[in-house]
């Protein structure tokens, strides 16, 4: 999955550097080139890559540093620390509280997988014996309500929506009120796909958010996205208070590196990943164990704990 291949090529690059008889700027340059290439192939944002390389370079002063192992260790550690920074956010994700209504709103680009993931998340909580439900606040996309309805019925999850009301904020508010009264724990609000170039769509997102006052807004990102991710993620994050990211479609071939810029742009952690079209294809994601696993792919374990 994400970064797995990447981990391998980076580990190799670092190992190659470690085993080179001399260690000078040339060797460092070569290593950074290999790493950049691997990151570029995985769609990682080009600015983030530049930053990563600069940060690593800054740590190394060839004049001052003593020769040998020390330098290499410092670089190895720097490389891995910088990689961790790519997937990690400083913010802790919102933790739903059982016995209270937790309103979670989904936002994202068109077709990124919001509706599917909403159903998956509701199902995830339902299986853990939480009272979970779905609200369809997408009045734009043809068949959107039917999509949620069919998913919900199949999974036995209560849902709310309307064929006649055109204002998503109204539906969202009505649905949340209804489910709060009925003492649901997890109230998930699905919204239409949108993009930063259309102001009206962003205004609508803000209206829905204001109408339901969500505890958490989740930004859904397709793993195959390329260099356009950053600008979109940033625009979403500038408009509403994004608290977490879900990267979808990781069952495919995509490395998901493009979606990582959503972590940097929103300052929010990845909380789940989508790994298929079926309702159980959702996995919790924690960056720490993930990065550790990534690092475990070479014999460079323990570098980071120092």
């Amino acid at each position: 999955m994400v970064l797995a291949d990447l981990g391998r090529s980076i580990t190799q690059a670092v190992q190659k550097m470690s085993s080179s008889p001399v260690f000078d700027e040339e060797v460092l340059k070569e290593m950074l080139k290999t790493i950049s290439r691997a990151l570029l192939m995985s769609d990682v944002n080009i600015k983030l890559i530049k930053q990563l390389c600069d940060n690593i370079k800054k740590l190394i002063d060839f004049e001052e540093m003593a020769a040998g192992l020390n330098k290499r260790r410092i670089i190895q550690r720097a490389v891995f620390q910088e990689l961790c920074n790519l997937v990690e956010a400083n913010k802790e994700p919102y933790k739903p509280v059982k016995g209270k209504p937790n309103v979670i709103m989904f936002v994202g680009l068109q077709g990124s997988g919001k509706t599917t993931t909403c159903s998956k998340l509701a199902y995830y909580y339902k299986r853990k014996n939480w009272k979970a439900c779905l609200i369809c606040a997408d009045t734009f996309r043809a068949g959107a309500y039917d999509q949620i309805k069919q998913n919900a019925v199949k999974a036995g999850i209560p849902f709310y929506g309307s064929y006649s009301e055109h204002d998503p904020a109204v539906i969202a508010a009505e649905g949340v009120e209804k489910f709060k009264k009925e003492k649901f724990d997890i109230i998930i609000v699905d919204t239409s796909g949108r993009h930063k170039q259309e102001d009206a769509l962003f205004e609508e997102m803000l209206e829905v958010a204001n109408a339901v006052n969500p505890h958490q807004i989740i930004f859904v990102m397709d793993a195959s996205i390329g260099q356009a991710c950053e600008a979109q993620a940033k625009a979403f994050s500038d408009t509403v208070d994004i608290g977490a990211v879900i990267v979808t479609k990781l069952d495919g071939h995509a490395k998901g590196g493009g979606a990582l810029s959503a972590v940097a742009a929103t300052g929010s952690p990845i909380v789940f990943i989508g790994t298929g079209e079926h309702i159980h294809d959702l996995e919790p994601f924690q960056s720490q164990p993930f990065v550790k696993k990534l690092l475990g792919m070479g014999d460079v374990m323990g570098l980071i704990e120092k």
Partner: protein
Amino acid sequence: LFSFFGTLTGGTEITKENLEPVLEKMREHLVGKNVAADIAEKICHGVGTSLEGKSKSTFSGIASIVKSSIEETLTSILTPKRRVDILRDVETAKKQKKPYVIVFCGVNGVGKSTNLSKICYWLLQNNNSVRMAACDTFRAGAVEQLKTHMHKLNSHQKQTGKSATVQLFESGYGKDAANVANDAIKLSKEDGTNVVLVDTAGRMQDNEPLMRALAKLVTYNNPDLVLFVGEALVGNESVDQLSKFNQALADCSDQANPRGIDGIVLTKFDTVDDKVGAAISMTYITGQPIVFVGTGQTYADLKKLNVSSVVAALLT
């Protein structure tokens, strides 16, 4: 006159050494515009090879020589080698008393059904009767999505006093897509519907069973046109998507009738600003033309590719 200047200024040779840094910058620039890394590298390498050893006048720096050479290459990649003229081919099919059949395929959520509906709108505007075949029998709401579009399109036709209509052919969920398409085509032949638009379920390109099912649908129904729908948002994956969709179709077709993707619909073009590199990646891999560009979520948001403006966006 030109050669005189050449000798006077000493016409320096373009070498690998002075090309390298310029090409490196160009490659990075293209990747930043969302051209797949591999393809950006190939393009720059090709340009490098063609320029190496040539002499340059001192008037133009290496950078501008490289830039204009890249510009030429990008333009040629985007310029269709073959014209896909759907309206003309529909007319031909009409004369042969059979429906013109288009299959839409691609990975999940890229805009197949929406852009199918936009193309339907365009066909209706041109007085062709259409039948949509609901062959996505998997994704929740897929059938209702097309049904909604059918109602909207027909009421628009009525309001504007036009007579062509669109119908939906559906067999519900869980059915074999190849059979649903076949039934829709058969019915259209019988009732003289001009065009059949076959919507298919989204699938990941390395999901073998689903790719085989798509190839089966295509070989079984032998459509006039197979359109690959890809979104402008996609990064390096575009390469893998297109080559695997193409390959799956080729694997299932017989030697006499090799089959592949006939054209591309590039969607969500309105969401990427100037990061339009996916257009290059997709055409480079297939050599097939971008037949339509999706530029929004309404029926009218369907355009032809403007090659020079895409190239300009890539180079700014």
